[in-house]
Structures are given as C-alpha cells and as structure tokens.
C-alpha cells in the first residue's frame, strides 16, 4: 500500500509543479514592483516638491506596554524633535501596566506640556484597544501611529503634511526600516523583509487600490478614522484590517518611502520571538479573511486581488516547504524522466528568489548607507531553507491556534538593541541638514 503510494507520488508532484511556479513568480513579481521599470522606480521614490509645509496639526499615538524607559524615552525624544511644529504626542497605556504608567509620568515631567497620557481601561490587552482609547484625546487634523521602539526621522511629519496637501489622499503610509540587522540572522531576514515590504510591496498594493497598512508610521486624516469608527479591537492585525475597510470605502493610500525619512525600529532577534510575531500576523490575516469585509470591494478584479493579498503569507509559507519537498520527491521517488524534469521547474523561481534577495540586500545596504558584509550575503543565502521552514511553522501554528480559537495577543518584546547597538542619534541631524 505504502509502496503503491510512493510509486504514484510523482503524479502529484507533476500536478503541483506549475502552480508552484506560478505562486513563486507572483511573489517575486510584487516583491520587485519598485524596480519593474524606470517609470515604477520613479513613482515609488518621488516625493512632493515642498517638504516644509506646516499647515496641519498632528496627534501621534505611541501605544506602550511594559516598555523600558530607554526605549520609550528615545522614541518620544525623536518624535518631539520633529521639524514640524504642531505635534501632540499621545502615550497610550493599559490601566494594568503601572510600570509603564510611571515611565510615561517621568517623561511628561521631562517634556512638560508636550505629552498627553491616554489610559485604556479595557481588560483586553492588545494594540487596537489602546489605539481606540487614545483616539478621543487626539486633537490633531491627522492621527498617526508610532510604535514604542521606533525612531522617527526629524523631517518626517513635514513631509507627511506636504503629501496630505493633496485632498484625494486620506492615508499616508510612511517607511519603516529595521536597523538591527547585525544582531542575528533572524533580524537580517526581517530587515530584508521590511525593506521589500515598504520599498516595493506596499506600493504594489496601493497601486491596486487594496492596501494593508503596517502598524507603524502610518497617518490618517482624523475624519476617516471617525468615519470607520476606529480600530477593530477583536483584530490581531488591526493595522491591516483597517486598511481593508478604508479600501472598501474608496479611500486611497499613498505610500511615502524616502530612504532618509524612514522610521527605524528593531526586529525580533531570536527564532522564538520571530515565530510569535509571525504567528500573530498570520492569525490577523486569517481573521481579516473571515471577517470578510474585503468582499464588499466594488469590482471582481479588486476582490480577486484582495483575496490573493490576504492569502499571500500562507501561500508563501506553504510554497516555501512544498517546493523543496517536491524536489526531493523528484530525486528519490521513482518517476518517468519527463516527470522529474517538470517537477524540477519550480527550482527556477526558487533560485531567482535567492538571487533577488541578495540583490535587495545590496540595494538595502546602499540605501541605509552601510556596507553589507560578504558574511551577511552568505548568511542570507545559507539561511533560506531555515527561514522557509520557520515561515511554514509560524503559518501552521497560526492555523492551529485559529482552529482552536486562541486569539490572544502575543506581544513582541522590545530590547532596545537598535538604540544601543546601531543608532547614532546624530545621524538624523546630519541627514536633515
């Protein structure tokens, strides 16, 4: 029986081969969107001509939970050092988190009159409840979110203000970059993924008018948040989910990626933390799919795109394991030679994936102005299989949790390694001048 199965395994292998090629190519296609042509390259790097507009007022929510003072202190300091004059910093803290409350009180003494404290009284401990708790105290025309561990560039808000001078634009997604890529290979991988996401993929999604925002360095017109009623507290990927609702209502998102204006944050450095974070994202996407508001998009094409985008993390995770498995089966299981050749076709996009990763790491290094070491390239190539296994594991874990109905928030811990290790705070001043 088992032998019988083995001798016919090649049929399944041939059947999945071409879909695997298609999925992999689709993934490569949107990863490289920013470089598709000189036209897209220009479109994804262009910025409003003036970057010193100061007409709107900003309220920036910084959601905090169990954060050490060094981390929050640096984030708030960078935020208050913006060149834009009209900024309200809103620190949102849970009522059951006295340590962080103390941290914020201390910071309020350091920066008198510039920080507003919002306390969430919800027993649900997650980011969307904290964001919703902060919304009533926000006074600005524009409400933005800045993660607790994220360092903003001084000219950022001026640039966002200039971008929002176009009345058609309701939301601006700013760039985020991981800077602790030297900490571990997991962080290196995350850096590259963030880079591909902000530099390329988000532009692709925005161009197709279905945008899943990131949760950091994102700015909404206040009126839009009121229109959609804020964030959904049930959601683990509240940032992406609010993007779905805004897309359905026809509000377009502008992706503003400027290498010198990105927010700098840290990525998980260990596999454990990475898997936790990734599981949460995957779960969030699953929730969003089930909530089903993307089905209200006006055209079939946009609905198709939305379905593809929401399933994308799962597809990538599955293909990352199935393709190598298929190659092994092709080599080991008895099969006709032509079938083996067909089964080997997914190797083509897989090799391309590795080479494009290396190329992107090179471009990333050039954009952050740091030389990428040969070791980093080697690490990137060598860890590809491990990374794909991790992605698959996180996806499987998310699916398991989803089926069990376990939707608790697994918070990513912040160590501040990006501040002590990498960040020379004067770098922003140099870039700005």
């Amino acid at each position, binding site marked *: 029986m088992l032998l019988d199965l083995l001798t016919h395994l090649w049929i399944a292998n041939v059947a999945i081969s071409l879909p695997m090629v298609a999925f992999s190519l689709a993934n490569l296609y949107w990863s490289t969107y920013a*470089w598709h*042509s000189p036209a897209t*390259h220009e479109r994804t790097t262009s910025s409003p001509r003036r970057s010193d507009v100061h007409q709107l007022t900003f309220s920036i929510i910084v959601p905090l939970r169990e954060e050490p003072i060094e981390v929050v202190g640096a984030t708030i300091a960078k935020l208050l050092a913006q060149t834009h004059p009209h900024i309200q910093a809103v620190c949102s803290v849970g009522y059951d988190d006295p340590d962080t409350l103390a941290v914020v009180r201390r910071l309020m003494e350091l920066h008198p009159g510039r920080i507003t404290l919002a306390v969430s009284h919800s027993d649900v401990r997650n980011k969307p409840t904290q964001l919703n708790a902060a919304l009533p105290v926000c006074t600005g025309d524009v409400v933005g979110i800045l993660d607790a561990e994220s360092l903003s560039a001084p000219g950022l808000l001026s640039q966002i203000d200039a971008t929002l001078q176009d009345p058609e634009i309701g939301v601006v997604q700013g760039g985020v970059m991981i800077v602790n890529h030297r900490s571990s290979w997991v962080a290196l991988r995350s850096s590259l993924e963030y880079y591909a996401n902000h530099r390329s993929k988000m532009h692709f999604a925005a161009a197709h008018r279905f945008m899943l925002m990131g949760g950091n360095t994102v700015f909404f017109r206040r009126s839009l948040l009121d229109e959609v009623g804020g964030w959904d507290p049930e959601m683990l990927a509240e940032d992406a989910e609010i993007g779905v609702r805004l897309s359905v209502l026809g509000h377009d998102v502008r992706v503003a990626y400027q290498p010198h204006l990105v927010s700098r944050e840290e990525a998980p450095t260990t596999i454990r933390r990475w898997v936790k974070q990734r599981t949460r994202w995957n779960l969030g996407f699953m929730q969003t799919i089930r909530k089903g508001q993307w089905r209200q998009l006006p055209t079939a094409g946009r609905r198709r795109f939305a379905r593809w985008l929401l399933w994308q993390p799962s597809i990538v995770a599955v293909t990352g394991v199935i393709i190598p498995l298929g190659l092994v089966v092709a080599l080991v299981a008895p099969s006709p030679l032509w079938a083996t050749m067909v089964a080997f076709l997914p190797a*083509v996009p897989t090799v*391309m994936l590795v080479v*494009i990763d290396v*190329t992107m790491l090179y*471009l990333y290094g050039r954009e952050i102005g740091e030389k990428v070491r040969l070791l980093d390239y080697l690490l990137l190539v060598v860890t590809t299989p491990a990374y794909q296994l991790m992605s698959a594991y996180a996806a499987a874990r998310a699916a398991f949790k989803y089926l069990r109905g376990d939707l608790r928030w697994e918070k990513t811990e912040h160590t501040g390694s990006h501040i002590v290790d990498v960040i020379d705070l004067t770098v922003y001043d140099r870039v700005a001048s």
Partner: protein
Amino acid sequence: MTLVVAHEPVPAPTRPSRARGIRLDGPRRRADAIIATILAAVVGVVVAFGLTGWPGFNGDEGIYTSQSWSVLHGSIEAYTYSYDHPFFGWALMAPFEWLAETVDVTRTGMAVLDARAAMVLLAVVDAALVYGVARRLGFRRVVAAFTVLAWGLSPLTVSFARQVYLDNIALPFLLGALYLALDPARRQWVYVGAGTVFALAVLSKETTLLYLPVLLYIVVQRTVGQVRIMAITSMLTCSLTVIFLYPLFALLRGEFFPGPGHVSLWTDQIWAQLFSRAGSGALWNVASARFQLVDSWLHLDWWLPIAGMTSAVLMVAVRRIRPIVVAVAISVVVVGKSSGYLPGMYIISVLPFLALCIGAVLESLPGGPGAGRVRMARRVAGLVMLATLAVAMAPEYASGIRREATVNLVSPARQAERYAIARISRNANVLVDPIFYVDLIHAGFRHQWSGAIVYYQYDLDPESLKKLPGAWRDLDYVLVTPAMRDQISGRSVALPRTAAAITHSRIVAVFGRGSQQVQIRKIVHTPSTAASPLKASS
C-alpha cells in the same frame, strides 16, 4: 558623415498619461502589424516555393527529422542519445512535423521535405520579428521593411531557412529575446521573459549562447541605477537556471560525468565542442574547410554579408545599434578564427544582424532636425539611397531566388528512395543516410538495429558493436548519398564500418550524376571479398 538619430524609440518615462499613449499608438501598431504580416507572407512564400528541390539534402536534416519522429514515438532519439545537441529543438519540431506529414503538405512522401515545410513557419515568424526588432531599434517603417526583405529574400537566407537545422529553430527564440529586450517601457519582467526565451534558443542550439553578451548589452544600455541592477540579475538568473535544466537532465540520467559503459554530456558535448572536434582550418588557407564553407556562402549571396559587414563597421558610431554590431563582431570572430570546427549552418543566426546593420545605415542618413526644404531634401536623398541599394541587390537576389525556386537537387535522392522502397525486401538490412530513415520506416522496414540502419550510428553508437558485431556481413544494402561520401572522405569523423560496407558492395542502381549521385549498393556476401583491410579496423 553625420549620423543623426531620426527617431527616439524610447518614450521618456515621465510622459504623462498612459491612456493617451495607447490611443495614439493604436492605429500605428495596427499599421506595423499589417506591414509585418505582409512581409512575413512574402518571405514565407519565397522560402516555401521550391523547397522540395533546393538545396540538396544535408545528412543533418535527416538526423533531426528522425529524432523528431522518435520524440513522437516516445524517445529522445532513434539511437543512444549522445548529447550532441540539447533535444529541445527537435522535440519542439515534432508536432509541426507530424502536422506537415499528416496533411502531406509537400506531396512528396518524404519526411525530411515535410519537416522543411515546418521550417517555413519559423521563417515567417523570423521575418515578423526582424521587422519588430528593426522598429524597436528606431527604424522608420520603410527602412524596417527594407531590412526584412534584405534579410528574407537573400538567396543565402532562403537556402538555409529551408533546411531542417536546429539553428533555424533557435533563431525565432533569439530574435524574440532581442525583441523583448528592446521593450520600450524597459520592464524588468519583460527582460526576464527575454532571458527565458533566450534560454530556449540556447536549448534549441547551444551555440546561441555566444550571443548572451548582446542581450546583456542591450539591457545595460537601456537601464540605469537600481532598475538596471534588478533587471540584469533577474534576467540572467532566470536565463541561466533554465539553461541549466539541460545539464540537470544529464545528471538525472547519470550521464553528466564520464563513466564506463555510458555516454556523458561532459565528454560528448562540452569537451568535444571545445577541444577535440577536428577543426575546419584557417580562413586564409584556400584549401581549408573553413575557406570553402565561407566561399559557398558567398557563392549563394555575397551582397548581404559584404554590405552587412561594411555597415556594421560604420554603425559602431551609433550607440543604439552597437549591440547589433557586437553580434556581428562575435560572428566574425567565430567564422574568422583559425581553429575550431565551423558548422555550415552557423551563418543562419548571423544574417538578420547583417541586415539590421544595413538598415541602420539607411536609417541614420536622412531625416533628423531641419525644417521644410532641408528636411525634404534629406528625405529624398534617403529614398534615392534606398532605391540605389535596392537596384544594386535586386538582380543578385532575383537570379538567386529564381535558381532556388526551379533547380532540383533533391530528385536523385527521391528517385533512389522510391527505387529502394519498391525493390528491396522488407527483411533486408539497409545502411542508410538518415534522410531516408523515417520514410523507410513508413514503408514497412524495421528500424534501429535491423531493417533501416543509420550509417552514422552504425559507426559511432556504443550499442552498434553489440547489436551488429558482424560488420558488413550483417548488412544487405547500402544507400550512398553525396553527404555520406563527403563524410567518409572528410577528416572530421572516422567512419570505418560504413567505409567497409561500401567496399564490400557493388552498385545496383544509380540516380543523378557527378557529385549529386545517389547509389544503391548491394553487399556482396561471397567469401572471396571477405578479407579487407578496413574490416580489421572495425
């Protein structure tokens, strides 16, 4: 001479609305499509008309036809696959050959001629692609059309385009890759497509790999900065990975590295091509095979090669044309270098590049800035130039085309085949040129190691000695074609078993005369002729 670029083919990336561009381009594209279709039809008709008579058969045509037939019957090759070329080309040809055979398109009953009919389709596609490439290089319609005709009506092109060669299968892929690489919007994934199509050209005929620098040069020329880095890496990766599927195939069959008892890609293809194949001699040696080959090309048509190479030298000055000049330069090096084997059909892939260089010269002469009368004068000058060139080449082309449409060099072989099918017993073992192989199978002969046996494999296939250990005594007839005689007397490969079979035979029937003669010979099985010096060497 002032070289003025008349049209900038690449729209500036900042050009405002895409929708407007499409509306403007619609009728223009339709005009291009109509012109390309007409040109392709003209070239197709000229190539098709007379292909059952000109040129005479080359043994390779029979080899690829029989391999295509084998693909239709479930194996890569009729005999042991020896990695002489990748099999993609003839596998691709198989369905077309089947179609041509099924509708009996040539009404000759000869599989090789039906396969030639399939080649006409490729020439048609080539013509359209040459027009497309010319347009994307910025040629005006009239110049692009002239380029297509200068290429497609050359007696040299027509003669080679008819023959069943892998180079003919590779050419549309090569031209397609260039066409894609000249994408006006300069899109990364179109470049990846170009790389993939180029890989298919290489998998059709491995020598096409020589043109990889041309493809890279075009993309490097047309991109800058991050877009260039991304375009080059993704295109190159995709292209090379697809090409590497071929060595992978050899690896999977356990035939990549040499070993006892089997052929290998390494020794039979890579090593053989690079080092051990007998060279064709130096071009400046009048007695060398290389000189004779080039002479035979120029005998068909001197105009296109000479005008094309002169134009290539002039066009070094024009940035846009330089990749095409590089393509010509690569070919000149391959043809002109003093060592290595030069296959006759190599010229096939060079001809479009020569024509494009001629077109580029015409394009660069007239036009350009200047208003009213000046512009008009330049335009007239250009047209006069064009007309002069056309008049200069017209008689050459016309007489060549007429000869190729009317002279029949194939009929001795056809008559011999008909005779063999009518007179030879189906139980006989017949050593044949591969051009007869498929037809004899259709006529009811057994094949491979009994019945119809291809002489080349009879000598070189590792299976041969096991299957037919009795040398010429195992055979009953030999069908000797001019190609076979050339190969036995030539120095490139030794064919002692075939030579011995011919020695031990007597002529039964003869068709044609002189160098075109095809003989049907019967093996003499009497003991008196048994001892022969040639036998010992087998």
